[in-house]
């Protein structure tokens, strides 16, 4: 007599049978139909599919109504290996949200960010994700940021020594955006510092700086800990972000949170959810919040935000959309708009904070000596040599250039370009370079960030920028304009309400 398969084995068999019904040809199945087809009770099917999903073997359809086939991960035994398979050290790292983002990444467009696989666009083009940030809410996984927890009696002292901002003025529950420099006053990085408690800070940075922080804190009563991999970060950005955030968390008074405030709460609507830290910060120039959560609770946070966002038009947004909105916000990006002094092989590539448009982060009136102070004092007396400016090419200029080849301007729908192009005095010499630019469909202007000689930086100055017109390169007349290009009231307003914009 054949023995009945034991309980555990039966579950495995059922799960495998379910898994086999997901193929590229039949990619989507709804729970009820699938359960019926396999003769399973819907709750059993739900449980088994939940495991398959959690293991990253299947995903959900964009509307979450159905389960969906996922491409097999490398090494799953499909075909002979060409390379990489089995080489764990070579696989891109996965953020704590990876299973969620992977299930939604229809385009399969990934980009490396600090060694992590990050979604470039979820859909084939970034338009909807871009508009979600400006019109509803976008959810962006920014976990690859480096995160350093600084604790100890001298934590404030260390930050005051490292940073150009005045940390004697920092208060618990606030975030400070700051620059940090080397001894020559050359910019190393810019980033946010959260004051989580009197003697506890969290620095977020684009690039590693553990060694620098430790060395600058030599002899201080302070500990610097790299918590980059322990903390997941989600940016929820856009006019509806407050409503979504409020519905997805408990214990945070969003009405009272000011720009750059910090709060703690719990994930989900009831009590007992995972602890989460919320900062009213972001890289979009819009109303928005960033959520900092222990990696093991990352998925719970994602699920809560996505669920809460369903009624508000929330979409997950990839890095291309982020790059577009950050230009509108006039925010500089390290190693795109400026070269960190720690990477610059020759002197001319290095800039001071002022030259990178970050003069407002340098507090020469602060008490403490900070790294680079002497050089920055000299610069104050002498004046910076370069300036970061916003450039704007208006519609008529674009029409004029494109009409030369008998076309309407072909500028919309392109992601922000990071290839530096020259900037000239009108009809004359090169005075700098434009490092990021794109046509903003919101502002209906071609906008860019440029570094130019200080004497070409005054608002209203006319400059020529090189733009691609068909296969040709033309000089377009641009104006130096105020940054941010886009700055809605809701970004900073206390108790922001849906529908309020700038």
């Amino acid at each position: 007599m054949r023995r009945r398969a034991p309980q555990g084995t039966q579950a495995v068999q059922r799960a495998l049978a379910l898994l086999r019904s997901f193929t590229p040809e039949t990619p989507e199945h709804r729970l009820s139909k699938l359960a019926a087809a396999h003769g399973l009770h819907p709750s059993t099917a739900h449980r088994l599919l939940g495991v398959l999903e959690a293991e990253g073997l299947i995903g959900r359809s964009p509307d979450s109504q159905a389960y969906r086939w996922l491409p097999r991960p490398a090494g799953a035994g499909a075909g002979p290996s060409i390379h990489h398979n089995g080489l764990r050290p070579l696989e891109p790292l996965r953020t704590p949200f990876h299973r969620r983002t992977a299930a939604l990444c229809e385009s399969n467009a990934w980009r490396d960010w600090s060694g992590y696989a990050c979604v470039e666009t979820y859909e084939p083009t970034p338009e909807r994700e871009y508009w979600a940030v400006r019109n509803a809410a976008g959810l962006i996984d920014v976990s690859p940021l480096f995160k350093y927890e600084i604790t100890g009696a001298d934590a404030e002292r260390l930050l005051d020594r490292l940073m150009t901002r005045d940390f004697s003025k920092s208060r618990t529950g606030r975030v400070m955006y700051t620059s940090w420099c080397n001894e020559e006053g050359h910019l190393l990085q810019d980033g946010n510092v959260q004051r989580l408690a009197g003697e506890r800070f969290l620095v977020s940075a684009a690039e590693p700086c553990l060694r620098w922080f430790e060395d600058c804190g030599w002899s201080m009563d302070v500990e610097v800990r790299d918590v980059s991999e322990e903390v997941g970060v989600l940016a929820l950005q856009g006019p509806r972000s407050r409503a979504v955030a409020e519905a997805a968390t408990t214990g945070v008074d969003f009405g009272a949170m000011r720009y750059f405030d910090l709060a703690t709460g719990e994930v989900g609507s009831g009590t007992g959810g995972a602890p989460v830290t919320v900062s009213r910060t972001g890289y979009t120039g819009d109303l928005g919040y960033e959520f900092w959560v222990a990696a093991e609770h990352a998925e719970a946070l994602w699920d809560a935000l996505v669920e809460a966002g369903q009624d508000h038009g929330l979409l997950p947004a990839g890095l291309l959309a982020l790059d577009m909105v950050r230009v509108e916000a006039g925010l500089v990006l390290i190693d795109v708009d400026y070269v960190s002094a720690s990477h610059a092989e020759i002197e001319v590539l290095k800039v001071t904070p002022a030259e990178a448009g970050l003069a407002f982060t340098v507090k020469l009136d602060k008490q403490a000596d900070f790294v680079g102070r002497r050089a920055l004092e000299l610069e104050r007396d002498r004046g910076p040599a370069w300036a970061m400016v916003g450039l704007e090419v208006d519609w008529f200029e674009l029409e004029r250039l494109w009409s030369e080849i008998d076309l309407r301007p072909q500028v919309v729908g392109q992601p922000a370009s990071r290839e530096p192009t020259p900037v000239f005095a009108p009809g004359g010499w090169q005075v700098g370079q434009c490092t990021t630019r794109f046509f903003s469909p919101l502002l209906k202007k071609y906008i860019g960030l440029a570094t130019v000689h200080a004497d070409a930086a005054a608002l209203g100055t006319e400059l020529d920028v090189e733009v691609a017109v068909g296969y040709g390169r033309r000089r377009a007349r641009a104006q130096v304009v105020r940054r941010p290009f886009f700055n809605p009231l809701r970004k900073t307003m206390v108790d922001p309400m849906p529908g309020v914009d700038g």
Partner: protein
Amino acid sequence: MTVELTEVAGTGSGTPSRGSGRFDAIVVGAGHNGLVAAAYLARAGLDVVVLESSPEIGGATRSEEAFPGFRFSVFSYLVSLLRPEVIHELDLVRHGLFLVPTASTLNPLPGGDCLFREADPQRTYRHVARHSRRDAEALFEYKLEMRRMGHLMYRLQRAAPDELAAAIGDRVAESAERLDVEVSAEVADIARYFLDLPAAQLRSFVQMLTMSSADFLGQWFESDVLKAALSSSSIIGSMLSPRTPGSAYVLLHHYMGEIDGIYREWGFQKGGTGAVAATIARAAQSHGAEIRTQSPVARVLARDGRAAGVVLANGDEVRAGVVMSSAAPQISLGRLLDPEDVPGGAGAGLVERAARWQSGGCAGKVNLAISGLPRFECMPEPGPHLSGGITIAPGLDYVDRAYDDAKYGGFSERPFIDMIIPSVLDPDMAPPGKHVLSCFVQYAPYELAAGPWDDARREAFGDAVVRVLAEYAPGIEDQILHRQVLVPPDIEAIAGIPGGNIFHGELRLSQLFLLRPDPAAAAFRTPLPGYYLCGSSTQFGGGISGGPARLAALRALDDLRTAATAAGGAAEMP
């Protein structure tokens, strides 16, 4: 495409007497440097002959089909130091230069762990951070500084050391008249660059000339694993431990290499490094140079206080007003030159000093033909790590102990191994599915305390290498189809390098710049007018660079021009 050496070797070989006669210039040795010199001289319109003692060209760059279907790059294995100006001026790409980049370095560690460094800095950060986050960060700074140092060497090596010294002396003395040397604007520019270096870079440079690599690296890094990995380049070809003062310079030597302007890149020449020599030979021949193998030179001829040609071992005379030797100084200065011929009685000192030249070999080569790809315990599956360098140097102590064995006259029982798998980079190197493994191994001293390097000792050395490999790639011992073991006396016998030192002489401050290979012959000229040095024992040092040969040839051409002008006519020189 497998480059056939026979295409270019053996022009007139076997019948050396046929080719005696008159030329404008003779180059002794058809190693890559000799061939570069010949190409430059022929390109300038001179009638040039290269005389090589062995039946093959290439010297230390030779490659051969050692076993049917398996091509070995017998000695040297990677290219980086090859000067871009040599590549472009001699149009080497047209003549067959084909460099496949080796993008990564894997250091297998005991227990299935590893340190992996890739071209992508982000990934490398992650790999190194597993061992030390501080070091992963410091690696950025270190590489930046080493690129600056590499660039400094690039500037320094663009001129002969005597010109440079004159230019620097000129700047220091602030008086051009006091120095009886004319300094070109280019050289003055290099001198200025050097003297105007920021203090921090000058400090690094002095450190690199004097410190041990372990101490030098210790200024940046805390992880022994990373220090050992980075120190590998500081011992290559040198009878030094990473803890020996001076080893930091050898590190720098390996950072001045570049491929297409990117310092510290290494490439594998399709067909093996022998194809580099073949490529250069073709370039030389395209300008009319003649290459004769099996033509050992016994002596340099002198007439009226000038070089006038050479005498071959078989007694044939070949005449030329310019003689250029690429052989090591023990040969070029110690054997080929009759001290009596050197004007001003300067010859005896030369010979004596040549005998004291430090060029004992310390490295062996174990080339393996294997039945399949090795499976490293740390990364068993095939992957990009197999197309990069793979180094067995799991810690500074490990390498230091390997050195200790050699210090007392033994070969390393657990050697340092620098390995590539040429057949992964170039499928023409082995039959499909099979592979060749090139292991550069240290330490293997030229002389063993226990007795001569007989077959038993050679095989014992080979066994030690396979034993160590099997610790990291279990099963490799059963994959081996053929094995070639070469130790310094073999390098001496086959490539004609006395002592078998891969650089034709240790790269130490005592044998560098104005002292390389001799204070009286440091700038390619010897005290015998018309007789020049152009091999690895001169400025630049060893490695597949072509740098010394180019500068030597340009200098000889300069001298010819000057002489022609003095004689009142430019007719002599094209």
